[in-house]
């Protein structure tokens, strides 16, 4: 599959390359969200907070001080990871969970967005702009042409998928899924769920920050409303929900389905001068998926392959059940 994707990047036209870059980046971001809800069992609707923190860490260091984005990404991971950990610590310390935790994540993201839009140093509402792209590839400053970013995004997506697969097969994966399915039972078995919840959120937040940093580089600019707004939080969660919660390939399949659809609908909307078509498409897809395929498209594909006895089903990873 990745060979195909790599070939796509090498051969196809610029539009497809940039579209697929976004798809792959959101695969990675979706994977980070998936880790938190699909495996850790904690619903976040404010993932834009972590994405935005990552983007601003890269942006501020690069634009204001000319420091390499590599450092920025590390800083972003650290900042977002700590913010996530503190948020998790505060909320679980005071028994905030379920929908209340979800509301807390939105409130935190919106609060941060408003703070960043009023903060002159990071460009406030006018945003931050990276220096105009040159076509020379520069690994140290992570700068290059569209195709370069495509491969960066591909590497990230591969890393995200491999990482999730590794985590979910490790000790941590079993502990987190146990905690997701029944927290009381997990505690009874001696799992320190409090620490593990903080850990899963910190890891997810740090991963989201990396995605955010690269997203900012790809877009070349950072605006608080687009990188920290509710819209981005929703974009992040649509992919994994449609593709399959808690599955390793769900976010990839979901992003591959949803983002081209979204782009097509907004292009259609633009040409017909009807804004809002892409929102409608997103909404309908979300409702239909939760209605008819509550565990997502990927598990459905796997079931289908099993049902019709496709011989190569051997190497299809088994989806793990996402819910109760």
């Amino acid at each position: 599959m990745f060979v195909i994707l790599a070939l796509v990047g090498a051969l196809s036209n610029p539009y497809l390359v940039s579209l697929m870059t976004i798809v792959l980046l959101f695969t990675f971001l979706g994977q980070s969200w998936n880790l938190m809800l699909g495996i850790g069992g904690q619903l976040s609707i404010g993932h834009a907070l972590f994405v935005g923190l990552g983007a601003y860490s890269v942006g501020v260091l690069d634009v204001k001080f000319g420091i390499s984005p590599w450092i920025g990404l590390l800083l972003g991971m650290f900042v977002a990871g700590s913010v996530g950990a503190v948020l998790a610590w505060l909320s679980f310390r005071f028994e905030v969970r379920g929908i209340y935790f979800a509301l807390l994540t939105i409130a935190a993201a919106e609060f941060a967005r408003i703070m960043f839009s009023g903060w002159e140093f990071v460009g406030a509402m006018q945003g931050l702009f990276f220096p105009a792209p040159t076509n020379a590839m520069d690994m140290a400053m992570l700068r290059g042409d569209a195709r370069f970013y495509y491969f960066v995004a591909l590497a990230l997506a591969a890393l995200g998928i491999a990482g999730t697969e590794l985590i979910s097969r490790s000790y941590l994966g079993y502990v987190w899924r146990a905690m997701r399915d029944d927290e009381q039972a997990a505690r009874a078995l001696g799992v320190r769920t409090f620490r593990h919840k903080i850990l899963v959120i910190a890891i997810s937040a740090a991963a989201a920050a990396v995605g955010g940093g690269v997203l900012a580089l790809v877009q070349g600019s950072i605006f608080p409303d687009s990188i920290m707004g509710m819209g981005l939080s929703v974009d992040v969660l649509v992919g994994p929900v449609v593709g399959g919660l808690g599955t390793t390939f769900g976010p990839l399949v979901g992003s591959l389905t949803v983002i081209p659809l979204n782009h097509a609908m907004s292009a259609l909307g633009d040409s017909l001068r009807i804004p809002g078509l892409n929102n409608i498409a997103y909404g309908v897809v979300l409702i239909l998926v939760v209605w008819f395929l509550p565990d997502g498209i990927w598990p459905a594909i796997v079931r289908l392959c099993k049902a019709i006895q496709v011989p190569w089903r051997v190497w299809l990873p088994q989806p793990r059940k996402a819910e109760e």
Partner: protein
Amino acid sequence: MLSLWLNVLASGVLLGLVYGLVALGLTIIFGVMRVVNFAHGEMVVFGVYIGYWAVRLWDVPIIAAAAIAAVAMFIFGYLLETLIVRRFVGRPHHYQFIVFIGLSLLFSGALLVAFGPDPRPAASQLAFHTVSLGLVTLDLARLQAAVASGLLITLLGAYLRFSSFGRSLRAAADNRLGGLIIGLNIPRVYAVAFGIGAACAGVAGALISPLFDAQPYLAVDFTLLAFVTVIVGGLGSFSGALLGGLVIGVAEAVAALMFTPSMKTALPYALLIIILIFRPRGFFGANES
């Protein structure tokens, strides 16, 4: 100076009553059905547009527009519950949340398609008329909205408390299984509860239509505002919603006086974070099922 403060407080209290009505809708839906209506802000905006068009087309008073909004949104909510929401009631919370995010995207998209992204200035001139009461000067639109909201909240409270349907609604909220056992028509109760919730949002929207420019993007703010209000009072609590509305209304008004505009918009979220952390069930919160 005193007069300024009194004015600010009064306008905060007045808008707070309207927020209370919005929050009441959310809290009824949650209290009875245990679903979190994340599309509540869109329903408020539907109300704003109903108010806008009713005044624009037929030049009716705002109160009449609110009545139209109430009926229209009740039917809308009832149908929405029977057709879609019903299927997700027993599902885990995050699935419901995702469905409602889908609904809210769908509605805001529909609003964009129908009315375009540009704000439409209020059709009613009511906001420019004022009433003077000694030290305090109030604009008529706000006063009317607040009085109507207050009246509605009282009536709704009395209805839920004393009528036979109100009793079955509260019974369903307390104990779904118990309600089923004694033969309550739970699906109907749920549909009506959702209708009432939507109607509250719609009426509030119509009432404030003279104060806000009608615009699809308002919805997110209203949704979050409704959640902040409800959380302050406690999800599922009737008097909590009212209290929360007043607290948020006054806090916003005072913040507008003391801070920069961006700080003012950030205040409800800061409040929400603080309250969620220190008093997650609000001040009158029902127990989570």
